[in-house]
């Protein structure tokens, strides 16, 4: 796979896990969702802050 797609694919899979986990299980599932969806947000913040 082209290196261009490695990070987008990983972040996409994380997002899907985050979207589903809290729907499939309470408690632990909620925590998995929070962490999995916080990572794409953190990536955005990290790269944007670095370029400023």
């Amino acid at each position, binding site marked *: 796979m082209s290196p261009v797609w490695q990070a987008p694919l990983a972040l996409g899979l994380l997002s899907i896990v985050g979207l589903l986990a809290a729907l499939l299980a309470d408690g632990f599932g*909620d925590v998995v969702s*929070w962490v999995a*969806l*916080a990572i*794409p*947000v953190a990536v*955005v913040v990290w790269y*944007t802050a670095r370029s400023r």
Partner: protein
Amino acid sequence: MALTATAVKRWYIVHKWTSLISTVFLLLLCLTGLPLIFSHEIDHALGYSVDPPELPETGEWARLDDIVADAAARRPGDAVQFVVSDADEPDLWTVILGETAAAPEASAFLSYDARSGAYLHEYPLRQGIMYILLRLHLDLFAGLPGTLFLGVMGLLLAVSLVSGAVLYGPFMRKLKFGALRRRHSGRVWWLDLHNLLGIVTLAWLLVVGITGTINTLAIPIAGYWQVTELAAMVAENPATAPYPGTGGVDRALAAARDAEPERELSFMAFPGSSFASPGHFVAFMRGPTPWTERLLKPVLIDGASGAATDSRELPWYVATLLISQPLHFGDYGGIPLKVLWAVLDLIAIVVLVSGLYLWVKRRNVTFEAQYVAEAGRHGEVA
């Protein structure tokens, strides 16, 4: 997947036009959706909703027949349509009334303490800032046509996201992930930001956009279920006698719990309402897990005898709608999930605004030509 210059240009035209047509409406949806994520909390803060008082938990529950009779007495002339129980508020019953049992709009939401049966509060319908935001988000104050129009905007968003992702490949060929270049005007930086934010939030935006479009079909989906599945349940289990007009609610609830012992009531549709028949109650029972909690199971109850005569799984299209609701609202993982929903929504707003900015700031050369030239410089286009 190597794209030819012609293919890049075509994908670019798709991306530009699907985005240009939908951007204004998507901005409106993102802006109104932001406070709507927290509508439960805002309603409480504004006093639109109340919590039941602290009471010792005795395990005793008030009679629903008494609560429904009290609600009917408070709204003489109106008919009880539904009794609703929120999974997160087990000590609360909400009685929904309408001008008639089958009226499409509710006339009152009355909440009761499920333990003492005490009347608590009337939810103010069709007023306040949250109502305005909800209508703008739901149907632009234009009813079902407005809702369906917004559904089409959701589809355009999906096409825009897919075409944008296709363009991301050739564009990033010679760039590192997350590169935000500072050179020339600020335009290149905004283009890089648009690409980074768009690709990082792609999956979330696709899911929220597609589930939003599915939600716009709620009324047609419910209508189709009513005239097919519900009609068949009623036709195969005709009412033994006309419903006497009042009472029988506790008996119906007990019958529904006996029929589905693993499940608890989500809402009870009253005889004559749009989700029941003139002679039947229908109890919509939610399951015990987060997933089955959404996938309700309808139990048909004879209004006169109180016997549960049928119960069925909902068909795939209703199940799809019911699962699409939490995935659009973000209300299934506590406050942290709602905060993440809000942040991702804000990022989506930046993607929309930066996309619009890039189009407004295009130079005399068409942006397609610039894009192809840009991709060509990175060695993609031979």
